């Protein structure tokens, strides 16, 4: 599993913001977090073929877990990350039993439904979650002695490191027999059991892992911003990450990361130039990309570079 020189160049470039754009580190941190979130969605959508309109459920569950942990017990970031991964993973595992039984529109709407239900539950449990005002009193500790301050240095270093680690894990998974089986299930779910690959068990595993990683991304957001509110569980967040993944190109490992960079940088720039109507330009960007680059940016570019999927 060699590293393509472009990949190495890409990861080296992610260090550039420290040097050339130090006032953009907070944005870079949020891009890295969204990229991680999109990567987790790619696992189930791009590779296992499960279209989810409710993936923010795990992102938000992880975010609140980390927030509640740091508020009531322990502000140490890495512990919070672990707690979020476990919490979101357990939730993912539980839901996966229902999810994998369904396909097509029913599957999409069920994921949507679970996301909406969790959002409502968090709103109702406002004594625990702080409701629409958000969770107050989050005290995030230091990471190896570094504080999370307004310059965003620690935040970006942290988010980038976690993104890279999870990326390595995902890369491993994709190129393993399990990953190949997932792709087989995506292509033809009926045939896979016939050649000995237990579809549902594999899908449940993939779903659980994806949920855990999404939870980690959520926890990162809470810890780097010291805030969490209902918005992390919203349909809007689920829809955004789906758009980002499709934009970048699903099923290509880097699609979520590329999509996150392009979408969030574009949004930041458009929003700065035209704060009242920036979403017009974003819409235009999406339409143009779809018309000229089918299967997302990476998919469209694949026509020019022959690559491994």
């Amino acid at each position, binding site marked *: 599993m060699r590293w393509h020189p472009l990949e190495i160049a890409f990861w080296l470039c992610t260090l550039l913001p420290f040097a050339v754009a130090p006032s953009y580190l907070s944005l870079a941190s949020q891009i890295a977090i969204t990229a991680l979130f999109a990567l987790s969605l790619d696992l189930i959508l791009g590779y296992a073929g499960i279209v989810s309109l409710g993936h923010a459920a795990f992102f938000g569950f992880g975010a609140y877990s980390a927030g509640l942990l740091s508020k009531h017990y322990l502000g140490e970031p890495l512990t919070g990350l672990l707690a979020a991964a476990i919490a979101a993973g357990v939730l993912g595992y539980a839901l996966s039993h229902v999810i994998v039984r369904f396909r097509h529109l029913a599957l999409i709407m069920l994921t949507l439904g679970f996301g909406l239900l969790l959002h409502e539950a968090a709103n109702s449990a406002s004594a625990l979650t702080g409701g629409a005002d958000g969770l107050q009193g989050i005290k995030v500790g230091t990471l190896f002695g570094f504080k999370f301050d*307004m*310059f965003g240095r620690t935040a970006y270093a942290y988010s980038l490191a976690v993104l890279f680690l999870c990326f390595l894990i995902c890369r491993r998974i994709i190129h393993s027999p399990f990953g190949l089986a997932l792709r087989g299930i995506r292509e033809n779910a009926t045939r896979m059991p016939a050649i000995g690959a237990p579809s549902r068990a594999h899908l449940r595993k993939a779903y659980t892992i994806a949920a855990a990683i999404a939870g980690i991304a959520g926890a990162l957001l809470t810890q780097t911003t010291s805030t969490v509110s209902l918005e992390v569980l919203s349909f809007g967040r689920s829809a955004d990450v789906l758009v980002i993944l499709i934009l970048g190109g699903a099923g290509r490992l880097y699609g979520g990361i590329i999509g996150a960079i392009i979408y969030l940088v574009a949004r930041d720039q458009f929003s700065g130039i035209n704060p*009242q109507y920036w979403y017009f330009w974003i819409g235009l960007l999406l339409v143009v990309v779809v018309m000229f680059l089918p299967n997302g940016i990476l998919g469209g570019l694949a026509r020019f570079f022959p690559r491994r999927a």
Partner: protein
Amino acid sequence: MKKLLIAAALGAAFGAAHAQQPVKIGVVMTLSGQFADAGNQMHNGIKTYMKMHGDTVAGRKIEIITKDTGGPAPDVAKRLAQELVVRDGVDILAGWVLTPNAMAAADVSAEAKKFMVVMNAATSVIITKSPYMIRTSVTLPQVMETFGTWAATKGGIKQSYTMVTDYGPGHDSENAFQSAFKAAGGTIVGAVRFPVANPDFSAFVQRAKDIGPESIFIFIPGGAQPAALGKAFAERGIDKKKTRVLGSGETTAEAALKAMGDNALDIITAWHYDYMSKSPLNQKFVKEYQGVAGGRNPDFFSIGGYDGMHAIYETLKKTGGKTDGDTLIAAAKGLKWESPRGPMMIDPDTRDVVQNVYIRRVQRVGNDLVNVPFDTIPMVKDPAGERRKQK
């Protein structure tokens, strides 16, 4: 890290000494999504103030940088505040339509020691999150507790059934109204909470009707809901002379009155601003506002923005153009002025807004439906803030 902070502080100090440098104000609002209208109205209020009073104060030019959070997004709000401070070098952080956004940005205001002006977000506790913050809008306890007390005493109402939207401001209003109402001798006969994006109120109104209370207290956000609720009252046959309907100002805002028509008559509301107020200052403000906002009338988001800019201008005049957080906040404490809404003050202890609360009834005046004020409770301080002081 520390070197950067010192450099930034030195830069700010130098900037303040250089009277020719513009004063940069970062205004963060919701200009898209569900709360876009609130942000736009606030923005128009800011523009109107600058049109009426020019863009130079204490020899320095005022430069506004606008940012959109897209809705309730504290992570985005915090990042925008950080970028405004670190990247754009703003002297003042202003705007803040929604509570979670204001709360998140308060951390930045405290860390960077920047003067922060909250022009809308109405949850009481926000003001405690940064010692450099003032508020020029309203707090929910300020209006709702006053309303509860008024209803049980001067209003002569003994019972009330409360109906609020199931989210932060709704819960706060419910608590505020109920506690004040009960403390003044009233009885709460029941309570219900609507789901947040609820489009249809008939089921809830039917429940209220079945109980037949002496009065109904409602709190719902602006937008499409007040009109829908008003229609539900009419359709279910609630007679407002027998069952008094008490609401917050948003329930009888301009768009709601237009949509409800005569269904709105006799609704009693408590609020701090109405664009139809006859004071000469307000009439002038409304005229200028219409020019800036393409013919639209101002609402309480607009006046929050307008008075926020006024507070900024006045404090800058007092400090002679100095913009560091400590100087500005010291100048802002105790600031008093006459606003289109009436007299206003920034409380010297809590830094929160102190203003009149008006009790109004919807009546037909000529061809229009107007919130006619018939009682005023003067210079109300935020009761929740006062209670915090005592702790």
